[in-house]
């Protein structure tokens, strides 16, 4: 998996992560959690048919969470330092903060080791959930993982120039290795590779543009040539320009666009926030919409650390607490979680303390997201073929919450809106600003295809591992025309 051997690593002067954890736990006077996040990243940007900036970096963050027992509960203090942290000083600082803080609202007993994750590492996964690899060094990457991409770009730039196209894009690869240790004896390590490739093509005058993107773990499954071929096809659709007014349109949303909408939906799925009355999942009198039907079609929206091709950390890593994530839950095994099941809202996020207070199931966040309609088949092309008149979108951009009560989001269509007539694309349409709620949209989907890997243009930067179906919505609200191209 990791193309580098560690030979090129530049943090060789740093003590091993597992030693840092042992030292910190040794210095700690009370209960303590130590997280070491190592990351190795390589990337290259390109624009105007040439490479532009690039980067190679090694990061390390050490987080020490100290717990301080009071007469009435437990307080937590968190210190986080980059690089070759002075461990004794970091432990002392976090203990000082803990002693000066009020009792934590999310307090729960630290977890014990021996609780095995219900999920293992799937085929092709680099995840090492057990303690057996705890003393292994961090996985590394470097620009060699992008060798084929860079080689492919040379030819793609030449072809683009000859054809009057301008290419821009980004290729990046990162491996984050997380080490977790607790004073209760938990020792876990997980190495997470994350890659993405974006390619944008524009006509020389900028009036016609298209985007293709892909998430990948190691660039073995994505090439510039494949993406370029799809891009050229899209740009050919744009040879005919059609101006359309704002209004409600039947649209076919490709998986990449659906990914951004579903990431937006799950982002609002906090149990505590819903009980406070401030989200789309709030019901009157401090209740939530858990159990309510959101969609007539039996959609399943899930996160699963063992999801084939999308594996992610099988245990909780929480360097800080929030309304639904707790530092007290570090090391908790993660299992498949159905946020929506059979079209009903099935889970909201709760940390252990919140779940106990509300009588709900403990539900931590998981770093992937899959939307599936059971039995659904067909590709985005099949949905287009079944469209009498409608719009085929490419991706969504600049998505922002307008009204949390309905989860109304606004945003733009970007780099390719196409008019479909009688099952075929007949030309490219101007862009639109949309105002839509992903919760409402899910309820209005009339047809979905098979689930495939997808990369949200907006949120893919943070949630890289998603798989989504293409969907048809009969009445998508295009609020106004955007002259952007």
């Amino acid at each position, binding site marked *: 998996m990791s193309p580098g051997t560690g030979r090129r690593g530049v943090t060789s002067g740093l003590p091993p992560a597992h030693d840092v954890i042992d030292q910190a736990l040794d210095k700690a006077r009370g209960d303590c959690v130590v997280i070491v996040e190592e990351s190795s990243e390589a990337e290259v940007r390109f624009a105007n048919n040439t490479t532009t900036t690039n980067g*190679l970096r*090694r990061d390390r963050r050490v987080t020490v969470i100290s717990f301080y027992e009071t007469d009435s509960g437990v307080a937590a203090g968190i210190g986080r330092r980059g690089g070759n942290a002075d461990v004794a000083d970091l432990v002392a600082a976090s203990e000082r903060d803990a002693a000066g803080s009020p009792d934590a609202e999310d307090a729960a007993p630290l977890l014990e080791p021996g609780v095995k994750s219900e999920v293992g590492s799937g085929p092709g996964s680099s995840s090492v959930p057990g303690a057996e690899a705890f003393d292994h060094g961090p996985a590394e990457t470097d620009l060699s993982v992008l060798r084929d991409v860079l080689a492919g770009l040379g030819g793609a730039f030449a072809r683009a120039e000859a054809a009057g196209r301008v290419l821009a894009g980004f290729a990046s690869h990162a491996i984050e290795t997380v080490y977790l240790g607790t004073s209760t004896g938990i020792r876990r390590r997980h190495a997470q590779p994350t890659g993405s490739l974006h390619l944008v093509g524009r006509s020389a005058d900028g009036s016609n543009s298209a985007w293709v993107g892909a998430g990948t773990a190691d660039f073995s499954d994505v090439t510039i040539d494949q993406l370029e071929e799809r891009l050229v096809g899209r740009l050919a659709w744009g040879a005919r320009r059609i101006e359309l007014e704002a209004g409600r349109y039947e649209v076919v949303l490709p998986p990449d666009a659906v990914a951004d909408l579903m990431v937006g939906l799950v982002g609002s799925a906090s149990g505590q926030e819903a009980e406070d009355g401030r989200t789309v999942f709030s019901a009157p009198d401090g209740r939530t919409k858990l159990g309510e039907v959101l969609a007539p079609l039996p959609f399943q929206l899930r996160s699963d650390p063992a999801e084939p091709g999308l594996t992610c950390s099988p245990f909780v890593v929480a360097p800080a607490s929030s309304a639904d994530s707790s530092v007290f839950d570090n090391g908790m095994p993660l299992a498949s979680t159905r946020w929506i099941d059979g079209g009903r809202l099935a889970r909201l996020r709760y940390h252990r303390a919140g779940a106990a207070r509300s009588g709900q199931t403990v539900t931590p966040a998981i770093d992937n997201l899959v939307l599936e309609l059971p039995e659904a088949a067909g590709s985005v092309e099949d949905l287009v073929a079944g469209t009498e008149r409608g719009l085929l979108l490419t991706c969504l951009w600049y998505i922002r919450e307008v009204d949390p009560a309905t989860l109304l989001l606004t945003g733009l269509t970007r780099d390719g809106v196409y008019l479909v007539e009688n099952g075929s694309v007949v030309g490219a349409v101007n862009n639109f600003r949309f105002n839509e709620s992903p919760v409402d949209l899910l309820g209005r989907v009339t047809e979905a295809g098979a689930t495939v890997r997808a990369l949200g243009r907006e949120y893919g930067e943070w949630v890289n591992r998603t798989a989504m179906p293409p969907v048809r919505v009969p009445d998508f609200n295009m609020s106004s025309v955007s002259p952007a191209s």
Partner: protein
Amino acid sequence: MSQHDPHAFDPATVTSVTSAALEHAERLGCIHADIRVERIRSQSVRLRDARLESAADDTEVGVGVRVVHGGAIGFAATVEVTAEAAVRLVDQAVDAARTTALAARLPVELAPEPAHGAVVWSSPYRVDPVDVPLADKVALFEDWSTRLLASPAIDHVTASLLGVSETKHYADLSGTEATQHRVRLHPVVEALALGDRGDGFETMRTLAPPVGRGWEYADGHGWDWEAELAAMPELLAEKLRAPSVESGRFDLVIDPTNLWLTIHESIGHATELDRAMGYEAAYAGTSFATFDKLGTLRYGSDIMHVTGDRTVEHGLATVAIDDEGVASRSFDLVRDGVLVGYQLDRSIARSSGLGRSNGCAFADSPLHTPIQRMANVSLQPAPGRGPSTESLIAGVEQGIYIMGDKSWSIDMQRHNFQFTGQRFYRIESGQITGQLRDVAYQATTTDFWGAMEAVGGTDTYRLGGAFNCGKGQPGQVAPVSHGCPSALIRNVSVLNTREESGR
């Protein structure tokens, strides 16, 4: 007011790291090399209903080296602050330049910049916000939250604080060596009121902007927290009872607490020349204000005067020397309503032929390469005394006065935008007659600024801003301030956000 930064690296360590790197870069034939050694300390605190939800101290350290070698650029960075590691970074950056040069079709060149020698600079502050004990911060926020929760009008209160103290050592082959220390602070309190039937809600957030000031800001230097918190319950109760806006076209009087964000999105980003020339086409986007329109594009009405600067006191983008060794300055972007300038870094200044950079390079971390980032982009007030906000409102027959920013979105060429706000007041016959709910305004950039009939005087001028402006791949976040007066914009499209959701 500026003082020695006790958390700076030992000067001998910095010199050994930077000299080792620069000497090695010169030996390898780099025509340019710069190195940053940084320590960024931050503290975040968040309370929910007056109870501590999360608090964390963070210290980021690292070294970043950028080289221009063989006509290509290379960047490498690590968290290890030693001379040996810095020398390895130079090798890696040169290697990155060579590797990516295989697909390069244009050589990279940087605009010339004179050497500035040794520069030491600090932003003005009294108390470094990260040095204040956590317990004191929690106590202040508990007090603010408890006071608001005591009101029957308020059901929930969230309060958050982010304080940053950034120490940056910059050195390059030309001989510029800058040691700079900046602090910034953003306290935020938001109150929520549930509707009577328990099925709707409204929120109201403090309008206090993030600023380049120390902890004294939370103590009332530069903002009247007491007055703002005292007024909030009644304002929120009125908002909850307010009628929903009827969509249509209205004259808008926009307060600086809202207008700064419209300036940021529709002028700030649109006048970044790297965007206008296509270098952000895959991510942040391009710009309608293309380079061929410099000096001719009618951006707005004749009274529109917009500047960029990295010099204003307490400005979040303010520095002495930027992350490419360029001295900071102030410059015009829009004059008499016409596009007259762009924000530049050294590479884009060179390739555009505009001469020297105007100092807009910034990297948000020692581990990220510097890219062109936004200066403090500000709309200038009316000359002389100028109108008050009240007199702008007095000139409106049917309109809305908007305060505070909330939701924002703009397209990738910076044409079509939509903004909401914190408070919306109906204006009838020149008088404010109460709040409205569910307001969003939508416009196209040049239509909007072309319809700007009046700007307020210097008494209405305020500095707004954000800590989290995003750009670049991998993503970087930059702090930036925007000054502006109140402004009167005629005949703008106003939407009802409830109607937009189809309910």
